[in-house]
């Protein structure tokens, strides 16, 4: 028994080493930096220890803007993308002909480069001196006036960012949900049919509970992913996100480290720890809520 245990630990050792060096140690380090005022990574020096970094970050209008943007993004895109993905998966699993084709089409965005897609979105939405862009063409068709989605009002930019994010995260969710739906045994549907259950009730009372672990997994990872959004905003609005009012928390951390106004690892660390705290809280809330609604069998 004793020997078995030792062997187990031995097998775990490589993973522990790598995780320890490249994840746990840096995490602790970031935590430490966040309390060291004016930390300089070159000279490894700092002035004082305290809460000043947090106070600075929390009073920085750019950070508050980033938090606001991130929260809007999370609240809109996570439910929307999960819900849409569920609808599309349901559609995909109820058709026979061309099913594989549609599955491939819906999965394509996943294997496409984020920045390339961002560029395409920018071209679609951007209003320039020469052209109003394809989307504005549609807006005009339906009697609206052109809006500059890339350099225009805040809501328009936020709309594009959310649209883009939903579009980018959906393929993975569709893939996962389609396989979850396929794994629900047909016999339950037959049983429900014999009992005269309506399609909606079958979905709500049978399908949804049966795929609830998968849905829950997608929601948790969706929240975490959306809170860590950064490259999407860069792809659409360029690197100077603060000026565009489109910065995210991760974007703020990056700017504090390497941006034009960068070179402040202490502030970056404090912001990163704040993000960590937010994600942790939301995940815990998710776990609590899920206890009631997720059925593991």
């Amino acid at each position: 028994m004793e020997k078995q245990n030792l062997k187990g630990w031995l097998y775990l050792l490589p993973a522990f080493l790598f995780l320890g060096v490249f994840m746990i140690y840096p995490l602790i380090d970031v935590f430490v930096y966040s309390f060291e005022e004016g930390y300089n990574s070159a000279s490894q020096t700092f002035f004082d220890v305290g809460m000043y970094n947090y106070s600075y970050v929390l009073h920085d209008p750019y950070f508050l803007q980033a938090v606001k943007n991130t929260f809007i993004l999370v609240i809109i895109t996570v439910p929307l993308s999960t819900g849409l993905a569920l609808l599309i998966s349901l559609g995909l699993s109820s058709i026979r002909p061309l099913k594989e084709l549609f599955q491939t089409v819906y999965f394509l965005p996943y294997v496409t480069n984020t920045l390339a897609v961002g560029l395409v979105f920018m071209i679609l939405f951007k209003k320039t001196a020469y052209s109003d862009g394809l989307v504005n063409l549609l807006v005009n068709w339906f009697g609206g006036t052109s809006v500059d989605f890339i350099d225009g009002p805040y809501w328009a930019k936020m709309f594009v960012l959310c649209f883009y994010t939903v579009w980018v995260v959906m393929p993975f969710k569709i893939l996962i949900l389609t396989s979850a739906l396929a794994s629900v045994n047909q016999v339950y549907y037959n049983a429900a049919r014999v009992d005269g259950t309506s399609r909606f009730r079958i979905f709500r009372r049978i399908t949804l509970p049966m795929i609830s672990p998968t849905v829950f997994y997608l929601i948790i990872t969706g929240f975490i992913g959306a809170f860590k959004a950064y490259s999407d905003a860069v792809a659409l609005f360029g690197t100077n996100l603060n000026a565009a009012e489109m910065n995210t928390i991760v974007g703020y951390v990056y700017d504090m480290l390497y941006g034009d106004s960068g070179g402040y690892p202490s502030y970056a660390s404090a912001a990163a720890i704040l993000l960590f705290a937010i994600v942790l809280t939301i995940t815990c809330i998710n776990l609590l809520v899920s206890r009631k609604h997720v059925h593991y069998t």
Partner: protein
Amino acid sequence: MKIVLEHLTKKFPGRGRKSHGEVTAVNNFDFEIPDGKLVGLLGPSGCGKSTTLNLICGLQKPTGGRILFGEDDVTNLPPEHRGVGLVFQNYALYPHLTVKKNITFPLENLRGADKLTKSEMEARALEAAKLVQIEELMDRRPGELSGGQQQRVAIARALVKMPRVLLLDEPLSNLDARLRLQTREEIRRIQKQTQITTVFVTHDQDEAMSISDLIVVMKEGVVQQIGRPQEVYDDPVNLFVAKFLGTPPINVFQGAVRAETLYIGKDAVLTVKGVADQEVSVGIRPEGFLLQEDGPLCCHLGRIEVMGRDISVVSTHECCEAPAIRSIINAENIVDASSEFVRFAVKPRKLYLFRRDTGERIAFDTDPVQ
């Protein structure tokens, strides 16, 4: 509610290339299941018995023919309007719902005039649960129940909406041997108590014989024989039915009729009046053998198994299709295990003649060969 199947046919399109042709799972079924009876559909795997059940239930549409419940033509009705309760082979209990919720699930679907209040539903559920004796398990989840208990819950769920017809698909196949015996008695009891016309599917002839009022023996989509279990056992219409029913199975010999005498190898076993000279298959039930020192059928003695009340004599004969002949003999007989040969006489009523080519039964009158 009697069930009438009229020329019922179900064909499935062939797999892959069209040239493979279609598969006829159910071929021109034409019979009536009387009201309040327990009927077993019996046959080997792939004989179309589950398809028949699905057709009666409405989960599959027939290619041709009609299904009537009483006087109502239900052929084109969806399952929910037929008033059937179906118990699935693996029970199909909803794993995320408690036993009580599982049982009330069909009731919650009722709409309009049939809509029930919550207390009515609970009363009905409790009634069904009492019938199958699971009332103390109502708050458990299916995962916390044994196979037998799950089976009962499934039956309760099928019965709670008071169906006109109860259908069971291989109801005992997922249970262990002891539970199987118990549960089949239970199904019999519940059916007797509720008097619902019940059809169940099984490949296990023991199961079908022991509890059915009527068995339907099927092979490759064609009904072979319908009748009370004992009738079918005693009077099989062909070699397939004779082989399918009975444990141990019937012993089949290659024989020949010459001048109204049946020969198995060189042994003249019986006189068979009214049978023309021909090659035949001879089926003899295990209980059809009598130990007799000067008996006409001479076999090589293999071994003897004592089973208490009976003894089973395992022997060989060059004309037997199977590697061994199994005969069941009253334990009062004494067999000398060291002798090389054993001689049998045959009970004429336990011996059947079948045509060698088609397997059809050949009728005969007999006097035992003296």
